[in-house]
């Protein structure tokens, strides 16, 4: 860890209590984000990625079973802060969020300009006029015409609304924005537009991103690093070049292979079966029963091997590993 590290998660745990048992949504997750970089948390539905976003922003529902670990923001462990301190010092001040289907999360009866201004009023204690002025600036940054400030959400297209949501996350000039599936419901060209907006903001303001998505192709538009999440665990982390060129974990490989390509003769692949339930994750490697490279060692949960400086959670890399971090099984305190 060096001065460049903005956020570092260590053994982050978030379990939910439900009537059917304990849902282990985030199971001892660790990763690192550097300043002015974008980390993509790549995973499919049911892998726990949205819970991860909630864990980082401490937007917890009432039925939390366990919530522990370390979140080091600029070296300070924000997990130690009380909820009130977190709300006033961290959330939407240092870390913002653009939630999934953000465009539907806009309040339909309040004008968009006022909604974007609101975080500035609450967290930066600005007056209404000042906040609206800041909102106007944000609109320009995200490419929404300023005369839309007085419009209502239903008057805007899906792409515009998503940009408004991004503006709302930006207005307090946070260090980090967590984006949960920011483009999944949008058209092709609108997606490209939004990614352009995010790139521009990153280059011009130095903001860092955690981008949570299942869309590999779109994620490559922003990614500096990729962390692959499966069944509540991070199974591979690598920098973008290495990852997109040659993913290590069999799941990552299959995921990459399932992206249909415009050109070339290869047909995309798919992964048979379904991800395991987070209620009772299997012992042993959680991907084993869908893995085409499975062998007998996989019945035991693999540790995290450091290969070429990057973690991979797969027995196949046992030999090459320069370092081994043993797995932490659920229920044990790390």
């Amino acid at each position: 860890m060096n001065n460049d590290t903005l956020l570092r998660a260590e053994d982050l745990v978030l379990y939910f209590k439900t009537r059917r048992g304990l849902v282990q949504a985030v199971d001892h997750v660790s990763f690192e984000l550097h300043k002015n970089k974008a980390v993509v948390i790549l995973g499919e539905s049911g892998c726990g990625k949205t819970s991860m976003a909630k864990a980082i922003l401490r937007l917890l529902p009432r039925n939390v079973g366990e919530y522990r670990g370390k979140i080091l923001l600029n070296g300070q462990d924000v997990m130690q802060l009380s909820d009130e301190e977190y709300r006033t010092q961290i959330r939407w001040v240092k870390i913002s969020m653009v939630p999934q289907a953000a465009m539907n999360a806009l309040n339909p009866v309040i004008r968009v300009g006022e909604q974007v201004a609101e975080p500035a009023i609450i967290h930066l204690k600005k007056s209404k006029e000042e906040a609206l002025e800041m909102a106007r600036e944000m609109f320009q940054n995200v490419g929404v015409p300023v005369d839309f400030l007085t419009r209502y959400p239903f008057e805007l297209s899906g792409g515009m609304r998503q940009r408004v949501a991004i503006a709302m996350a930006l207005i307090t000039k946070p260090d980090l924005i967590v984006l949960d599936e920011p483009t999944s419901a949008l058209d092709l060209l609108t997606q490209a537009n939004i990614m352009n907006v995010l790139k521009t903001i990153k280059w011009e303001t130095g903001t860092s991103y955690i981008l949570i998505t299942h869309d590999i192709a779109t994620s490559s538009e922003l990614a500096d690093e990729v962390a692959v999440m499966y069944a509540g665990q991070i199974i591979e982390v690598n920098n973008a070049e290495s990852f997109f060129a040659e993913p290590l974990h069999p799941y990552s490989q299959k995921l990459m292979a399932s992206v249909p390509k415009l050109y070339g003769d290869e047909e995309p692949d798919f992964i048979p079966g379904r991800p395991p339930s987070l209620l009772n994750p299997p012992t042993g490697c959680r991907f084993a029963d869908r893995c085409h490279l499975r062998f007998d060692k996989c019945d035991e949960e693999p540790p995290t091997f450091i290969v070429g400086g990057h973690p991979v959670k797969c027995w196949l890399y046992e030999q090459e590993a320069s370092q081994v971090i043993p797995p932490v099984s659920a229920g044990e305190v790390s």
Partner: protein
Amino acid sequence: MSVATQPQSVSTQSQDDILVSVQNLHVWFELKKWGFSHVGWVRAVDNVSFDLKRGEAIAIVGESGCGKSSLMKTLLLLNRPHKGRILFEGKDISNLKGKELKAFRSQIGFVQQDPYGALPPFMPVHRILDEPLVINGVTNKKEREERIRAALAEVALTPVDDFLNKYPHMLSGGQQQRVVIARAMILEPKLLVADEPVSMLDASVRVEILRLLRKLQEQHNLSVMYITHDLSTVRFFSERIFVMYAGKLVEQTHIEELLNNPLHPYAKALLTGTSVPDAANAKHLKEVPPGEPPSLVNPPSGCRFHPRCEHFMAGKCEVDEPPYFEPVPGHLVQCWLYEDGRTSYPEPPK
């Protein structure tokens, strides 16, 4: 110099081979104020013509608001054409009613975008599949049971008994979509219309479903209309592709031809806008045409893409709507760039 042509002659084979023929179709919705005074028209589909052969799969590609859903719904006669006609097996179906309408509908299978919304949440799978059979007069209970089982087996929801009594919320997204497909196939249709069938599914499941659709198409010699905004899935089982923008089919050709030689500026934008997983993407901005798709109530004059087009030619593009040109045989495009006979996309002006 190429001559402006009508798209009906895309297929030169005999008329018997053509399953669906759409001719000068206009689907306009009336806009009324206070419920009765006429204010304008929403021109969802504007003078669209194409043919679909038996056993052929075509893809209609366009973004939201381009009218592709309206086109599809009109083919299913969930909307009525405002002008123009639709021929199915040579017969004009635009004004069908009653029994004939029902008979026609049984020949088309419909697969929707949202698999969960497409299934009645209060019916178990066997009843969901039973409904089309009962409605279309299959009275023999045993026959219905057999057909239901066969349909589930065909979409690989096996063992069949495991799924018969499940409710939709008990199934995964992929399984739900398979049920939707089974339901669409159970009446043994000649045409399958699939509206964004995989866009709400996870990446790793999409391919499964697309492969399934292709298998069904091959095995049953099904004609398929595959509607999507995701170009990268189009190669899967479609032969021809139509690009739709603001109610018009701006480009029609074979898929490989489009991928290698896109002609319409909008099609080119779509291709450029499609991402491939490549770390280099993060280093530069993508080229995207400015602005947004236009409203269908007051579309731009002349060529509807002109406000966003990098090759906009003042005095021409905003004045007249371009007709179809055929720069390359079998490749039609509605764009003034090709009036002079060029055969490929020109470099954008600096």
